[in-house]
């Protein structure tokens, strides 16, 4: 992955994780579009490419982020083969989040984690799938 591509991903992550106001409601009770800026409460987002063993990106792969203390979040890689996860509760150590990937006809070969230099920055975890 080139630095430029990583930068593109980071820009996308920032928009997805920190840019959008949230939906306008609390528990079946209106409160006039109240918005919460949750960024101060977030742990770092996760993102990365899903690739095959030739390095080609794989769209539509299932990506599961499993939290050691219980709970998981499941998303899919987009048409570029990239997934984005906005982050977990601040008290969850990012080291306790495992990223795995899956797609029909493939099995997971490896994951590669690239820790950011700043702990608040998104964490890149690339996942490689191998044809079965």
């Amino acid at each position: 992955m080139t630095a430029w591509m990583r930068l593109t991903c980071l820009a996308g992550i920032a928009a997805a994780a920190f840019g959008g106001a949230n939906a306008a409601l609390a528990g079946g009770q209106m409160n006039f579009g109240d918005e919460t800026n949750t960024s101060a409460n977030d742990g770092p987002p996760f993102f990365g490419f899903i690739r095959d063993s030739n390095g080609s990106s794989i769209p539509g792969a299932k990506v599961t982020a499993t939290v050691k203390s219980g709970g998981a979040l499941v998303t899919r890689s987009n048409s570029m083969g990239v997934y984005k996860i906005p982050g977990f509760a601040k008290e969850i150590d990012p080291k306790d989040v495992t990223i795995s990937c899956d797609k029909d006809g493939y099995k997971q070969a490896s994951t590669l984690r690239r820790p950011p230099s700043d702990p608040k920055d998104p964490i890149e975890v690339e996942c490689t799938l191998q044809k079965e």
Partner: protein
Amino acid sequence: MARVLMAALGLLLAGLQAPAHAQVLTGTVGSAEDSAMEGVLVSAQKGGSPVTVTVVSDAQGRFRFPDGRLTAGDYRLRIRATGYDLAGPQSVTLGAAPADVAIKLAKTADLAAQLTNTEWFMSMPGSADDKRPLIECMSCHTLERIVRSTYDADGFVPVLERMLTYANNTIQARAQKRVAAPTPNEAGARRLAAYLATVNRSAGAWRYPLRTLPRPQGRATRVVITEYDLPRKTIAPHDVRTDPQGHVWYSNFTENFLGEFDPATGVNTDYAIPVLKPGFPTGTLDLEADADGNLWLALMFQAGLARFDMAARTFQMFPVPGAASDDAMQQSMVMPRADNADGKVWTNDVARRAIMRLDLKTGTYERIDPFKFLPKGGLHAPYGMMADARNDLYFLDFGDENVGRVDAVTAASTIFPTPAPRSRPRRGMLDEQGRLWFAEFAADKLGMFDTKSEAFKEWDVPTPHTHPYDVFCDRNGELWSAGMASDRVLRFEPQTGRSVEYLLPRPANIRRVFVDNATSPVTFWAGNNHGAALIKLEPLD
């Protein structure tokens, strides 16, 4: 316990059971502008009867009430064709001979009175973000009420703040106050007030054109709609379902009764639910069947769940311990479908944005936070609930954009964000193939989550600002949906994307939708939550 109301006795006279005396009513619909108008809804209601039957004119402007639906007598006629009023005739007398009436329409002098919430959304200037908070308002009243007001921005703020003090189970015929009112989000209220003052009549007449949806065409005209007025205007039918005898059971959103309605006789029976918290809003929301076919109700601000024994016709109450001292305690959902798997019934704790699970043996509840590993401060709201055969819970995160699963054994949760952002999935159903069908209230989409592959599919509803509330997948794999905005019932084929929208005869605020698969074609049922009526829709194909 049963309070049988025979107020609908006139129904027998309306001749629902008397095909031997059935009359034929046909006719044409035209106006000065158009001699043969397609897609005009023509409704006939016999004097004193709570039953209104509606058909739709075809491309030649002709309509025909199906044989056997009407009997001899005097009928009031009504029409729905946006932009027009009924010029005449206002009534028709059916006797021995077939009646063929020429219905004349005249341009309306008050188009605004005919707009649906969807059409107000279409007409009002402003951004999607400006309009988004208004989808909450429809829960208690129409948008017409807002746009006809004359408040300026400052005048609107206290009105909006007062709105927060009402319980969600409020209709115009029966307003209910919350005991624990939330603290208003003042910045949000000011922003919304400023926007509303630009779309109401604070500066005189509306300065934007009123946009309307086209009349039904083609397939959308091939339908018969029957409305059954309930005996009190304060009845707010929320969830509906039919039983094998063809009786319609409904939750009453504002009164503490479970309703049973027999369409064949017109008899409505109210089963009084014991009041657990005097002084708190009454009424129930979710109505679901357990594994034995008994009905469960989520008690809203009465706090807890009720099981209705279908044989004994009695309630067993499951109050939430400690709810007496918790003014905000509210249960909107219940999921007892797989209670035979582990003796547990799912519900929610609205105020805490959490899930609760009732242990039937002990009567105790446990609270589960399915979002505990996600960032705090999100606007999550577990809402529509489904369960599989193991009693794993699937829920819709109505505040945000997720489908969630809670494992029946470990109570661990898995969150699946919908592809559409800010979708606010609301209600739905889990079919026998493990497909979860649901409505994306804020994203104007129908969704499907395959619980086996854990993959989503989404389809845009054909009319923006429909804000679908719920979806039902029928035995043919067709989807049925409706909501609080469009006065239309959507029928949708997910395989082809083919759809038809059936316009309803009256303003209809629809929540839960239900399809009776035992008829051919299938029959759609819903409650008119603000109109104190049950709606039966029979497609002719």
